[in-house]
């Protein structure tokens, strides 16, 4: 196991290095740069500014400069916001994380419950309705669901706030603050959960159906175990095992932010910040964020692979 780990870790480093260069080049080659978007500048001033920002240097030189700084922990200043990239992350990323963590938990929980029940009662009314609703949630564009919910719950009924993370102008602290955030979080989390339920529920249901057809379940039943014991102790555990590997993939998603949700609900998250920064070609911010996600992704896949082994000891790594 340890040789496997060492080997994987060294691959990881190689991959990250290659990825950093690839990603840097991609952003640098994207048409337009930070200066071209500003229509108020004359062509000479544009040239001057490119000099000041170092954008006129060759790609390799820019990459090596960035890499050198990054290895020292200096990810530079955002071109648009004039603040250190890491500071900006800190300000936005935890908001996204909050939404992601809660909705992921809810998604998994609900998906397991519904998927298992639907599999158990396969072909029943419950199963059919559940599947239809799932498909529906998957094929409706998310901004519609968002707009729809806002219209109903916020505008028409005034039950929930229409957006933002806290009530404007409030000075709440401690519990009052937490409650405010929870109120504001309800709709975004609801939409995120609805959207994510679809595929996960199907996956669990499919696994559960397979497991329930297995011989050892028959044996368990034949042994006279209660149905509940059969379901939860034997079937569920085996059905869930393959899904454990999905956990590794949730890692980058937890910090990646959700652009659509954040935009609709005005949630101060990293997702919509990324989109804006991309439009502006704010390279330091883009590089910092993408590399951060890259690291999480690579760790995530390693985690997945290790969990495969944990889930099914027959698997040879």
């Amino acid at each position: 196991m340890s040789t496997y780990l060492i080997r994987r870790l060294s691959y990881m480093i190689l991959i990250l290095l290659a990825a950093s260069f690839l990603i840097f080049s991609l952003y640098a080659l994207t048409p337009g740069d930070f200066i071209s978007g500003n229509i108020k500048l004359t062509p000479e001033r544009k040239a001057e500014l490119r000099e000041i920002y170092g954008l006129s240097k060759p790609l390799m030189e820019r990459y090596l400069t960035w890499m050198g700084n990054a290895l020292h922990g200096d990810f530079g200043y955002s071109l648009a916001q004039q603040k250190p990239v890491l500071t900006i992350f800190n300000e936005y990323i935890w908001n996204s994380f909050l939404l992601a963590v809660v909705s992921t938990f809810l998604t998994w929980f609900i998906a397991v419950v519904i998927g298992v029940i639907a599999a158990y009662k396969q072909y029943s009314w419950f199963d059919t309705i559940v599947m239809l609703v799932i498909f529906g949630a998957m094929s409706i564009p998310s901004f519609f669901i968002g707009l729809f919910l806002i219209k109903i719950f916020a505008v028409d009924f005034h039950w929930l706030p229409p957006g933002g993370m806290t009530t404007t102008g409030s000075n709440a602290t401690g519990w009052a603050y937490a409650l405010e955030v929870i109120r504001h979080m309800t709709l975004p989390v609801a939409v995120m959960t609805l959207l994510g339920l679809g595929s996960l529920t199907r996956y669990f249901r499919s696994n559960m159906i397979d497991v329930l057809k297995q011989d050892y379940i028959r044996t368990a039943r034949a042994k006279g175990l209660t149905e509940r014991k059969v379901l939860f102790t034997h079937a569920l555990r085996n059905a869930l095992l393959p899904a454990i590997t999905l956990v590794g993939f949730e890692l980058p998603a937890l910090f990646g932010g959700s652009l659509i949700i954040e935009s609709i609900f005005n949630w101060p998250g990293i997702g919509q910040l990324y989109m804006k920064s991309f439009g502006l070609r704010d390279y330091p911010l883009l590089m910092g964020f993408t590399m951060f996600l890259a690291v999480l992704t690579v760790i995530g896949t390693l985690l997945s692979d290790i969990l495969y082994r944990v889930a099914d000891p027959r698997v040879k790594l």
Partner: protein
Amino acid sequence: MKKRTTVSASISILLAGTLLLSACSDNSGNGNSAANSGGATGSTNTAVNAGADNAGGASTDGAAGAIQAADLSKLPAAAKQRTDTIIVGLTDPSGAFTPYFQQSGYDGNVSSLLYTPLVLVNDKAEPIPGLAEKWEASEDGRTYTFHLRQGLKFSDGSPLTAEDVAFTWTILNDKSYDGDSQVNTLGIKGSDAYKEGKAASIEGIKIADPQTISVTLEKANAAALTTLGGDVLSKAYYGKDYKQGDTGYMKSLSTTPVGTGPYKLVKFTPGQEVRFAANENYYGDKPKTPNFIYKTSEGDTWQYLETGEVDYASFSATQENIDKLKSLGFVNIVPYTPSTYGYLQVNLEHEALKDKKVRQALTYGLDRQSIYVDAAQGAGSIANIPSSPISWAYTEEGINPYKYDLDKAKSLLDEAGWKEGAGGIREKDGKKLTIHYLGSKSKNTDIFIAVAKENYQALGVEFQPEIFADFNSLVSKVEGGDYDLVSFSTPMLTDPSDGLMQFVDGEVKGYSNPKFTELYKKGLETTDIEQRKAIYKEIYQLLNDELPVIFTSYKKSVYAYNARIENLAVSPFYGLAASLPQWSLKDVQ
């Protein structure tokens, strides 16, 4: 599932773009304006810009056309309870609140409340006193002298003197200055030497006494008054660590501004709100409403206005928007026209387009009424000169409106030698008449392409549209020169000469008309408004005939505000900032 993180993640990312960019452009009615898509216009030299939150600068057409709230009892509870605070939505302030050193127009909105310029302008762009109570220009128009008011203080209580003004002008000429202020393009005497490090100060700036300062330019420039008359930075606060050649330290001061405006910064929560309180050291009348908040809000602000979370919002002046606003009952609706114009940039280096007749034919042959007025449900009007309709220089005398006239367009093309050829497309010397159009993705671009395709087909021109993913990609392609027509709109224009900049600073390649250049210079040589009006009239008539670019449209917008606010006015050039201190809250119970 895993797909979520790869294909679906990219899908969601891209889908989000849909919402973001289209919502942005819908709100202002013109997705091509750089003030909206992408969000970075940079601050203007008059220290403020992008007035009302989404569009570029605004002008009230007086009270004419204003619709009063019908039924104030419909006011949402959230708004009623807010008796000492006004909340306005702002798309995306990022925290860079130091004027001249910010990149985004929204940050400019914030600093417009925190700072007051030396010279303000009224709704017609005529200069009026700000921090400076009077000023003179020398005979030859090259030297300006400003007289500051007595007893001016910064928000931290320290006094404001001519030293601070000198410091501001000096640091803007520093070689490491990376903002987009125009002060360093004015050609102040000695600024080149300072930039290159050969001098330790700028020769042309002279301090006569703590209240008086004068600056000498190399060449006369009437527009310089408002450029020089921008915000003033405190030397003690912003100049403490200043060493010639290095302005990097300014970044660390961007979230803790010290200014001279009616409000001071209380708290900034990134992505959520910017909180202000009345500035007790403000030189003018104390603001009537003690608290003000800019709430970060993207895209559609309808839900915020409807629930009372926000007191003021601006919308495109479509009939439907107006109807919906009326139905709310508790908002006053005021129409305004932003100080900007839309145009099609023409590639004058292509053979076919060098001919004036072809450009005119393309204008006659384009149904601008359908595209910019009808399809926009009345939220626009047609432009024929490089000026916004609210400017003091605007005129329609002697201007050809180029009404849609297919026959006239056809005959012009015939005259120019383009005869109908195979497949209905005109040809000349074996070459087909094709127009390669570039647009950036937005609802308006879609409309333009759909209508233009039909119009030009009838005219015998092959129309080849191309859409680019965002504004930046579009500009990059234009810089490469591979286009015939591109849709653009100007940034906010203050002085009439601003609207002509693109013909002079090298952006529009291939247009050189000595008569125009001469007139342009003349227009800047005098500060007498009547004289300048006549000069600009000539220029407009000239450009209207020559069409170095094809003028397209003006936007029309409305702003709607909670009727419990009184004395509300919006300046075309400063947005809310100029009149905000006057806004008071009516008692509504």
